[in-house]
């Protein structure tokens, strides 16, 4: 996982609530056996017509949208399935942070394990971000994981919470498997105790 300490980047807004994982990446793209190349499938049904041509009115298809690293959405982002293909697709497109009012649990976990930072904002702070981007779509945002803060034009507008361990892993580019393996003795002890059970 690529570390993320602080990110200053331009953003894209898809202001809808309940953006589910089937919208983030439809199930027909789940027939892969690796993680690479899913960026093209991100928001596929909103992004492309059935013949594969980009839809002119969708924000990801605007010429100015290229290379943006922050996605801004509404409430309950990532609801639905456990498919990790959702953060793989976001990452594949280039997004490193999603700012939303709230996130579904499994998506949040999956995103954090792949270097995509879910930032839940309060109503007022979320409104400030939307207003700023409505006034100037090229406005850069700073998402600072060390300070757990979001800034706009150098001014801190929101703080956010992240699970302490997930933050530690993301700041240092660590994955959690290494940490788990370190507890081999505890697992062995638990299993030994467990084997004493009568069933």
């Amino acid at each position, binding site marked *: 996982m690529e570390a993320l300490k602080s990110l200053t980047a331009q953003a894209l807004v898809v202001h809808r609530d*309940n953006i589910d994982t089937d*919208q983030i990446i439809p199930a027909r793209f789940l027939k892969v056996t*690796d993680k690479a190349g899913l960026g093209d499938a991100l928001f596929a049904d909103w992004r492309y017509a059935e013949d594969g041509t980009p839809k002119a009115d969708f924000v990801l298809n605007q010429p100015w949208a290229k290379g943006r690293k922050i996605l801004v959405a509404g409430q309950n982002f990532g609801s639905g399935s*456990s498919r990790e293909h959702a953060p793989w697709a976001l990452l594949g497109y280039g997004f490193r942070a999603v700012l939303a009012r709230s996130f*579904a649990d499994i998506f949040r976990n999956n995103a954090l394990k792949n270097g995509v930072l879910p930032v839940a904002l309060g109503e007022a702070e979320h409104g400030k971000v939307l207003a700023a981007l409505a006034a100037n779509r090229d406005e850069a945002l700073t998402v600072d994981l060390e300070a757990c803060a979001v800034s706009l034009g150098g001014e801190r507008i929101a703080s956010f919470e992240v699970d302490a361990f997930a933050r530690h892993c993301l700041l240092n580019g660590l994955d*959690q498997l290494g940490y788990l393996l370190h507890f081999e003795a505890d697992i062995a002890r*638990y*299993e030994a105790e467990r084997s004493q059970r009568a069933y």
Partner: protein
Amino acid sequence: MSQQAQTLVDKVWDRHIVSEQPDRPSMIYIDLHLIHEVTSPQAFAALEERGLKLRQPERTVATMDHSTPTDPRRLEVLDGQSRKQLDLLRRNCEKYGVTLYGLGHNRNGIVHVIGPELGLTQPGMTIVCGDSHTSTHGAFGALAFGIGTTEVSHVLATQCLLQHRPKSFEVRVDGELPEGVGAKDIALAIIAEIGTDGGTGHVFEFRGSAIEALSMEGRMTLCNMSIEAGARAGLVAPDEKTFAYLEGRDFAPKGAAWQAAVADWRSLSTDEGATFSRSLTLDASKLAPMITFGTNPGMGQAIDKDLPRPEDLGSDQAAAELQKALDYMGLESGKALLGHPVDVVFIGSCTNSRISDLREAAEIFKGRQVAEGVRTLVVPGSQDIKRQAEAEGLDAVFRAAGAEWREPGCSMCIAMNGDQLSPGQYAVSTSNRNFEGRQGRGGRTFLASPRTAAAAAIKGCVTDPRTVKAG
């Protein structure tokens, strides 16, 4: 801790703590890990990359379900990409020593159907799978939840996960369900009430007389839909019905071990005086058959109500979301949904493909015909269920009515296997998600119970199942 009154969730949780460190999530042990072809390839690849072994191969069990054709010709119609996924799962299972109930196996089926059927799912267990509907297994008093592929690799390598203790959310349903109303209707009513994120950060415990009265199949349907309300898991305290369901199944304890297990399982209920983070109470006697009209499972209501109006909603954002959903669905606010034409009826999925679901649908189909122009698919959840249904003659009822009787699998719930809607088509579906395009790009889904789906099939439109008597 043990002196205090505890919830069922906390009891199960405490049994599985392997290690707790400051500023770290708890490390919990996973008793049963279920895998399938779609979310496991990259997890095995992660093991390979690090040269790791599977810690407990006998605690992982595999099936093939998501992309398997339900056409009786199966392998002939399998597409290349799906074939590659199935082949890879087979190779991984052989290499790592995992039992596979693959395509062609006589116990094959949907992962959340075969777990309980084989007796793998047991009270008090922690159960995970790279699939959000793992919550289904909570019907047995297990703490069961969906995980991503990275976590699948964690379980393969260590049999453990890093998790925060979930908060408990009591969902109490008392009273007697009216005729024609079942577990699916309870689930849709709960989600309509609290929304698709109402349970975020929580685990539901379903309690009350209406829950106790449900069959194990009904409890599975209810727990299955927990995730649609945002709760990763939902569970029901095990009782005599649970034990009766499990006794004698392949992987259930036998003999003295069975006695010991049941004695232990009886302790798995919420203590009197234990507190929940949140509570919701529903009166079962006031429930009606439910149906969704929108593009998430929270957009549902009693089937005989008129469609909601955006202008009646509190916020502009909510009004805009509802209007978008109605536009996608091609529906007009304020109008009735009853009588709306239907193109496809799907009876199946990990939510509603069990024998009781098929019996419920067959009662409606018996002696009747599917309406002209409606395609009806009946997809049993497993080979076991298929055999049972055929022994009872249900397949003959479906076929005589003009419905398709298919091979088991996830089928049109996730539409990865060729069973799908065409753009613009309307389906009444017993599955769990009505998201845009979920059952095929441009397809439009009304979620409902097997009874309501069957009624729609014979009438050719959205129909109140209370108006269609058993045939």
